């Protein structure tokens, strides 16, 4: 076991080093792209934590990603120099000006009924704080209600799915404050003590790369704690854990909230590297796509899910360069996904683990490829 553990950490270290060295070989354009994929990798971590370790298949992870993205985007929108009231110290988002009723005061407090909500976002750090607080708050409220009521399996998935679609519609409908379908575009740069994070410079890449590395290692350490172990016990058998005296809903809610915080963090980073926030973050397709990444990489492996996300997106980007092949690639993704669910339920990480086991090959401990897939819906039958 200790040997396997060492190898495990060595792989983490290798991954981090690789990510850190990329700027040596890549131009600014590709670095910006890869930064986006690293953000997707972070989403993979969030999915693996809640799905693989907590047994909660969240089909609405986009809600937390979107919440984080919008919170920071609001601040960055107010920091934009090109699209606001030029020469004024009282910035107002351009779309509010365009849609303002004739004669409305052109101030953030009162240009429309709800615009005052934007006021605190004049501070960038308020946006950053809210980008974490809002997802955590939403997840805690949702988790407390759902898990205290012992709702589990597919019902949690459906609730999260319906919720993300609901919020998406509300965001679209609240045109005066959110710019509806169009989302928030033309944002300013994230700014730390004078350093402006232009998405196409190396420091921005490092902001993302370091963030991802910290999240990876932090999450990995978190599941190595006693709580992380108890969480896996809860995943395997809620009742057994309950009768051993553990406060089951507290564990589920806590890790659900951590997963939400990671997704929210990813949302903020995404806004920094791609300079927009849009209701498409809360599309059904995006939330399920994240699950696809995690499944291909390995739902029960933090790093596996992360690499799965990065790998699929990098290949997509490379392949899509070829004219006309983008659509065919989508079909291939569909096919890969079916095959992974059927034949490789533990994903690429599962393959890697088996490979390492074989290398270590003390004795072939009970053919690991037959490990039953965590079936979170088994409670259905009760």
């Amino acid at each position, binding site marked *: *076991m200790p040997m396997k553990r060492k190898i495990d950490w060595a792989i983490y270290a290798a991954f981090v080093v690789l990510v850190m060295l990329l700027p040596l070989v890549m131009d600014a354009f590709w670095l910006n792209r890869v930064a986006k994929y690293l953000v997707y990798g972070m989403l993979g971590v969030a999915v693996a934590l809640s799905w693989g370790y907590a047994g909660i298949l969240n089909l609405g992870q986009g809600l937390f990603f979107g919440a984080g993205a919008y919170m920071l985007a609001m601040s960055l929108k107010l920091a934009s120099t090109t699209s606001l009231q030029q020469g004024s110290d009282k910035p107002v988002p351009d779309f509010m000006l365009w849609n303002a009723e004739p004669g409305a005061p052109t101030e953030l407090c009162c240009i429309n009924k709800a615009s005052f909500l934007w006021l605190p976002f004049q501070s960038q750090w308020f946006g950053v704080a809210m980008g974490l607080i809002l997802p955590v708050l939403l997840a805690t409220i949702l988790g407390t209600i759902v898990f205290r009521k012992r709702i589990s399996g597919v019902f949690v998935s459906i609730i999260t799915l319906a919720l993300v679609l609901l919020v998406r519609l509300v965001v679209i409908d609240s045109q005066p404050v959110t710019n509806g379908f169009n989302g928030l575009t033309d944002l300013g740069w994230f700014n730390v003590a004078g350093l402006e994070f232009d998405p196409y410079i190396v420091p921005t890449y490092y902001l993302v790369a370091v963030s991802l590395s910290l999240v990876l290692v932090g999450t990995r*350490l*978190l599941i*190595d*704690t*006693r*709580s992380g*172990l*108890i969480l*896996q*016990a809860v*995943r*395997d*058998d809620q*009742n*057994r*854990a*309950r*009768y*051993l*005296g*553990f*406060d*089951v809903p*507290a*564990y589920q809610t*806590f890790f659900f909230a951590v997963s939400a915080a990671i997704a929210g963090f990813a949302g903020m980073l995404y806004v920094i590297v791609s300079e927009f926030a849009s209701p498409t973050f809360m599309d059904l397709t995006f939330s399920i796509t994240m699950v696809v990444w995690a499944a291909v990489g390995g739902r029960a492996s933090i790093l596996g899910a992360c690499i799965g996300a990065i790998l699929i997106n990098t290949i997509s980007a490379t392949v899509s360069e070829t004219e006309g092949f983008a659509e065919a690639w989508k079909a291939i993704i569909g096919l890969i996904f079916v095959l992974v669910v059927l034949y490789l339920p533990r994903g690429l990480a599962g393959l890697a683990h088996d490979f390492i086991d074989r290398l270590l090959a003390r004795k072939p*401990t*009970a053919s*690991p490829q037959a*490990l*039953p897939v*965590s079936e979170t819906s088994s409670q259905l039958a009760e």
Partner: protein
Amino acid sequence: MAQSALTIDGLSVDFEGFKAVNGVTMTVDDGELRVLLGANGAGKTTLMDLISGKTKSTDGRVYLHDTDITNWEEHKIARAGIGRKFQIPSVFKELTVRRNLEVASCKKPGVFANLRFGFGTDAERNVDEVLELIGLTEEQDRIAAYLSHGQTQWLELGLLITQNPKIILLDEPTAGMTQAETHKTSEIVNNLKGRHTIIVVEHDMAFVREIAERITVLHLGQVLAEGNVEQIENNPKVREAYLGSKGIS
């Protein structure tokens, strides 16, 4: 006379008119091993559900020593000192045997209290002892899903022993076991005698004879008789109600 560990006073539950447990009163002494006997539908498992909080009673009280634990939440009852083994063995399937026991060795219920690494040398030593006791030392790094049925049952017993509750409720611990496995189970249970108060639901009379001190017979949700093995086997009321319908093999 020892102090009573568990006192049940007029406990009843009403499932839409059907009283599965109807006014059961019994006292289990500290360190005692009590067997619950009864035909199918006599209310044995329901009684365990009521004690452990799975089912909420509609009348009567349950005391653990002097604490009234009636209708508490399951995990609070567990923390108060009542451990339970289920009829269908339930362990943490995707964790190794050792990891299973380490989970049970965490003494604090909350998520924040457990945000720390390692389990401490005392806990690890205790886990080693339990592994020895349930005979799974060799299997400690195996994933629990690959254990045989008997081994799974022992692992669940191991979880309870590690949890170290004052009272252990065992619901048919030998169900589906071979004779040899049953015998080993009785050894484990006998080993726990004195250290824990144990209540066992069991059908297998061979097993009951190996472990039992006192027996309570339930019939149609009520206590029919109480006594040692000999008294129960010769009790005419029991013979009529229980042997008549099913027979003690």
